[in-house]
């Protein structure tokens, strides 16, 4: 599999999250996703951008074009150096939130995309990557 970094955006303000949604939409259109796939992917990106900001204390998102035997795709890698998630399984559970959120962000994002990967270490940070294939 080959992947090529296309862009990195920082996520420090709420306006940055809006920008992440816009850029994700542009890349999803470029990648040739249909409207429903675009919408799912942008929605997942929006959930993760918000988590990066709200829980991770800010971070970055990297856009990658991926090329594999199964075809071409688009990958987004969200990374922060925040507090990390003590129990990832629990955090992925629908309805689980450490504040007043609906707690649908992580689990929902996972359902919306083709591939979902999360690595988190307490005190080090969190990295979530999502991939959609064309």
């Amino acid at each position, binding site marked *: 599999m080959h992947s090529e970094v296309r862009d990195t955006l920082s996520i420090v303000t709420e306006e940055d999250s809006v920008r992440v949604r816009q850029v994700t939409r542009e890349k999803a259109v470029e990648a040739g996703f249909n409207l*429903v796939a675009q*919408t799912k992917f942008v*929605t997942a990106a929006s*959930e993760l951008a*918000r988590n990066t900001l709200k829980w991770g204390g800010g971070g970055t998102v990297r856009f990658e074009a991926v090329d594999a035997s199964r075809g071409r795709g688009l990958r987004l890698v969200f990374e922060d150096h925040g507090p990390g998630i003590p129990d990832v399984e629990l955090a992925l559970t*629908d309805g689980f939130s450490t504040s007043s*959120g*609906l707690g649908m962000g992580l689990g*929902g994002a996972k359902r919306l995309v083709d591939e979902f990967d999360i690595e988190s270490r307490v005190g080090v940070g969190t990295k979530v990557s999502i991939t959609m294939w064309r």
Partner: protein
Amino acid sequence: MERIPILRMGEFLLVTIQVDMHDRLALALQEDLTNQIAHSRSHGVLIDISCLDIVDSFTARLLGNMASMARMLDAETVVVGMQPAVAITLVELGITLEGVRTALNPEKGMELLRAALRARSNEDGHAL
């Protein structure tokens, strides 16, 4: 700060969300709408989301909150114009917008509001 406009349309309030809102703007809208309902004594609110090309969990919660707050201020809310791709995505995300009335377009939404208000005044009539 920029604001989402809330228009008065006869007996109803109309909110058309035309931009991708950042979170503070969304929360400001929630507050503005509550104030406007109280101020105008309107009993119906139409929220047009046909321009929104995504609705994530935050926006969904916002819509739900606005409907609940309106209800507490004696107003009915109808959300209109959700794009089909948005509806598909919301269901997969696991969000049902329970407690929020929806209609396909503003005309249907308006009918729904009128019917709800008529039903209400009939009930009041019986109670008297």
